[in-house]
């Protein structure tokens, strides 16, 4: 297999694009594609301050690396969830995020959930009825809240996450399987800023997970390889495996699924019903917007822990 650009031996086969690239051209192609999507979806401009949510995994660290290479002002945020499960998962993730930042002279904010709210994720999931078999949803709620808080408190214009095409296709698949109309309306490369909520963007949303792994390996980015021990059996992982089977038979199927969805929505397939658009109220504890009057979901969850 030869590189389409130079004819040298290819390192990465991008079957969805009918193209293979050598190491050097692949490492040029990924940032160029990312820049293209940043502009296409009007994610941010060079003057804006970006906060990158980093987990210590391949996607978020690669995103931070790419934004730096492209010359954007991007700081990092690591949220320590306190997940140990015998492999010191959070401690190791934090070490890798800190090592990445220190090695490149980048600013990294660190939030420790247990220090801030008394309980770490494994305890919060046990204490909350919502957490029965839903560790990932509790974790997602906590991360979204804290990302917003830090973005607001430190004056960041935009919050960037390392969601890749496989993440987006799996989410879309799950939402379609459940006909989750409200979620389908919101899913996209950019979630617009609202009062109290930072703009959220996903610059890697059109890059395959396998290609992001190749990027991390070729850039020698040290990342946490272990799967989150609390995500074993998660539906999103099952959906990714299913979609990869389809991709194997029909290269480009995942990309087409996601892009066709974005196009269909833009063409009016989903019409936002004004009547059901919830009015947002500030939470009396944290000030972040919530659809119901009173405490937001996050504060309802952590308040018993603070007593």
């Amino acid at each position, binding site marked *: 297999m030869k590189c389409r650009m130079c004819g040298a031996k290819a390192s*990465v*086969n991008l079957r969805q694009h009918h193209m293979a690239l050598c190491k050097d051209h692949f490492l040029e192609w990924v940032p160029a594609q990312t820049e293209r999507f940043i502009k296409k979806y009007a994610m941010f401009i060079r003057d804006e301050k970006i906060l990158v949510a980093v987990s210590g995994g391949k996607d978020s660290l690669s995103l931070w690396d790419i934004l730096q290479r492209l010359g954007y002002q991007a700081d990092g945020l690591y949220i320590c969830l306190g997940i140990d499960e015998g492999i010191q998962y959070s401690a190791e993730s934090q070490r890798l995020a800190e090592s990445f930042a220190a090695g490149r002279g980048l600013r990294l904010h660190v939030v420790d959930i247990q220090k801030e709210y008394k309980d770490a994720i494994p305890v919060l999931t046990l204490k909350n009825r919502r957490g029965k078999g839903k560790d990932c949803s509790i974790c997602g709620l906590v991360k979204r809240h804290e990302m917003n808080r830090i973005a607001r408190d430190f004056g960041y214009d935009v919050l960037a996450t390392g969601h890749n095409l496989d993440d987006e296709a799996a989410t879309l698949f799950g939402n379609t399987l459940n006909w989750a109309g409200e979620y389908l309306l919101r899913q996209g490369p950019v979630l617009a800023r609202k009062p109290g909520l930072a703009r959220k963007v996903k610059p890697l949303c059109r890059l395959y997970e*396998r290609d992001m792994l190749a990027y991390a390996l070729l850039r020698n980015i040290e990342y946490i*390889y272990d*799967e989150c021990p609390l995500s074993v059996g*998660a539906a*999103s*992982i099952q959906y990714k495996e299913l979609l990869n089977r389809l991709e*194997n038979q029909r290269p480009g199927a995942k990309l087409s699924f996601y892009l066709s969805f974005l196009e269909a929505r833009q063409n009016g397939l989903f019409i936002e019903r004004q009547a059901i658009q919830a009015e947002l109220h500030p939470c009396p504890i944290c000030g972040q917007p919530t659809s119901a009057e009173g405490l937001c979901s996050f504060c309802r969850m952590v308040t018993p822990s603070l007593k």
Partner: protein
Amino acid sequence: MVKLVLRNQEYEVHAGMTLLSALQKIGILPEGIVATRTGEMIEEDEILKDGDVIKLITAISGG
């Protein structure tokens, strides 16, 4: 023989086949992994040689 290693699992296949054939033989989708040999990434058309140890790195993450 060629050894393929995915996390804690080891598989053996005959030398002379391509990486793609080897993956098909052991039931692993190429879409979900990146393969390396002595630290270098290899693609599906690579012919595996006797004594090769191929490390398969899984791409899927999330929850």
